[in-house]
């Protein structure tokens, strides 16, 4: 879950990282006020959950408060990476002597956190790593031992930084590690971390990602930062359809019937589980089908939960048929899913035998499930029909319909 720059900086400020004077503006008048208060040239930065702000022209400088107000109006409407600006950060602009990069993330292969440091900050760190590998250090560290400053020191010194700069950078970077671990972040990044011409070290831009799994543990922080539980912070904002999908899933703690993602096709999908959904979505597409949605069911959801998910999918304009498919199930019961989708069709005012293009869920309680499906004349198959072929049968029905 990505934080806006101003939220990342608010988190950094709590831990005493050095930041320039700034304010978050939500109007041109407000931007002028902040620039006036700062009393020197400022930079205005669009607050979006996307990189590429500079290239999009959504970061600009202003020498006076009036100019700041004018630039606010100029950059606020700019869409960056498909995202609208939430607000504009107005921050003091200072002459820079040197830029550094510091980032902490997880290395899934080593199964450890890694501190990445470079004395060539300000640009894409992956580019620096490719072109100037001796200017980038990667330092893995333990999650069991206490974090002490030697980790940061070693990382910084490995890029050739020494003298006063080494000793001033070390506590800043060490605090970044503390923040990364304390808040269950998947990324804590300062780029650039700068030495100003007057000798001060300042965090100029920062980026923080929190693990979705840890949101509950950090509810207090999120509340204080103004991040509501409804903010998913995915790569794009959720659609109404997706929000309703999340509501269906939250309505009952038993099993999963959610993780809905909207697509623009016409074949509704009730699919599962985690890996099965990925496999089946690919299968529908490679057979020439056009999914109306992605979703996941699993962990034996109740009849009602499956019913509500079915109704949601069928409520999408243009969706006349659904394909109900899973991998061989062991925990989820076939009969319960069968009852749920049939009930959903009926409650949506549709005939299950017409609406369910295919039901392919083999496994636990399948005899009972198949009996129910047969009674409602729903086209179903067992494990002798592959996931791929089942998807093909559904797509073929869409084409002949």
């Amino acid at each position, binding site marked *: 879950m990505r934080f806006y720059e101003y939220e990342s900086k608010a988190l950094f400020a709590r831990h005493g990282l050095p930041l320039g004077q700034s304010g978050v503006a939500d109007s041109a008048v407000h931007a002028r006020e902040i620039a006036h208060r700062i009393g020197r040239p400022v930079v205005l930065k669009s607050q979006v959950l996307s990189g590429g702000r500079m290239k999009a022209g959504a970061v600009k400088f202003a020498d006076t408060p009036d100019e700041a107000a004018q630039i606010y109006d100029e950059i606020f409407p700019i869409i960056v990476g498909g995202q609208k600006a939430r607000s504009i950060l107005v921050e003091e602009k200072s002459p820079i002597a040197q830029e550094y990069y510091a980032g902490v993330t997880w290395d899934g292969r080593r199964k450890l956190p890694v501190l990445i440091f470079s004395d060539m900050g300000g640009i894409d760190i992956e580019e620096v790593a490719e072109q100037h590998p001796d200017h980038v250090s990667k330092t893995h560290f333990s999650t069991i031992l206490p974090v002490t400053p030697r980790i940061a020191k070693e990382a910084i010194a490995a890029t050739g930084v020494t003298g006063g700069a080494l000793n001033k950078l070390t506590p800043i970077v060490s605090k970044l590690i503390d923040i990364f671990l304390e808040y269950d972040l*998947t990324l804590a990044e300062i780029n650039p971390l700068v030495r100003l011409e007057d000798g001060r070290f300042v965090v100029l831009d920062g980026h923080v990602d929190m*693990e979705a799994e840890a949101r509950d543990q950090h509810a207090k922080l999120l509340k204080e930062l103004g991040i509501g539980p409804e903010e998913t912070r995915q790569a794009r904002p959720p659609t109404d359809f997706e929000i309703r999908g999340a509501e269906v899933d939250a309505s009952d703690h038993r099993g999963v019937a959610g993780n809905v993602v909207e697509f623009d096709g016409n074949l509704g999908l009730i699919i599962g589980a985690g*890996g099965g959904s990925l496999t089946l979505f*690919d299968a529908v597409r490679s057979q020439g089908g056009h999914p109306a949605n992605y979703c996941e069911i699993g962990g034996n959801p109740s009849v009602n939960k499956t019913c509500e998910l079915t109704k949601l999918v069928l409520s999408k304009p243009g969706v006349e048929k659904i394909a109900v498919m899973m991998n061989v*199930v062991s*925990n989820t019961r076939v009969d319960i899913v069968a009852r749920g989708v049939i009930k959903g069709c009926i409650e949506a005012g549709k005939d299950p035998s017409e609406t369910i293009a295919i039901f392919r869920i083999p496994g636990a309680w399948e005899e009972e499930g198949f009996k129910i499906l047969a009674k409602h004349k729903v086209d179903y198959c067992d494990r002798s029909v*592959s996931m791929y072929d089942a998807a093909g049968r559904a797509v073929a029905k869409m084409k002949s319909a």
Partner: protein
Amino acid sequence: MSILINSETTFIVQGITGREAVNLTRENLDYGAKIVGGVTPGRAGRDVYGVQVYDCVRDITAKTRVDGSVVCVPPRFTRDAVFEALENGIKLIVVVTERIPRKEVAQMIELASLRGARIIGPNCLGIISPGEAKMGGVGGPAANTKTAYSKGSIGVMSRSGGMTTEIASTLTAAGMGQSTAVSIGGDAIIGTSYAELMPLFEADPQTKAIAIYSEPGGRMEAELAEWIQQHNSRLPIVAFMAGRFMDEMPGMRFGHAGTIVEGKADTTAEKIKRMKEAGIAVAERISDIPKMLQERLGEVK
């Protein structure tokens, strides 16, 4: 033989009185597992399908040999439960629990490594050596497990618990049994990756070939490809890659916690390329796996 577990493996279930753990205990016992105790703090003296419940892991390890533990406790208690198992000398830990923050997973794995122990998972369904034993929820009730899994020579590794069974069921229908199937877990950081299981399969005379289920996200497939290239493996491998549509949707999370395309190396296209370069055959459909394995096994002979 098999890898990780066989009919002699003894294990405990931590969190045994929870709803999911009770089912899992019954299913494992029905399949022939030797469960030598269960742990739920404050519930000592009860039993779950004849398995004695204790307050502490040491109450069991003091009395009997314990090879492994299935940890099936809520996310906020999981790290503590795994640490307890590790500090009492248990060497194989299957973590079923999902939604554990990465930091805690990393801590468990780091301690396991210090103690010379292995973690499978988290967010997995465990291990099955068909005809011998299973450890975890893989395959579900014993009757369902016996329909899907059969004893044989194919090793299975999968980032999805459900797809472990789908692949086994497909292999069984084609007359190809399995040596051991491991649901390795769907998280971004897991205890044991494909590459880390390869030496075990390599050393197992029963295993003649490997089937893999894979997803977008992470570097585990690249790690496997490197391992294959460095070790001149005797085992033909057929991998299936799900989630190909996700390449067009960077930054969106689908399915498991570890499944997100964050960079080029996470895409299915890149993973397929690397695996093919290492000689791993990549199946377009699950149903193609048996035939592709047979072709490769034929070549080996």
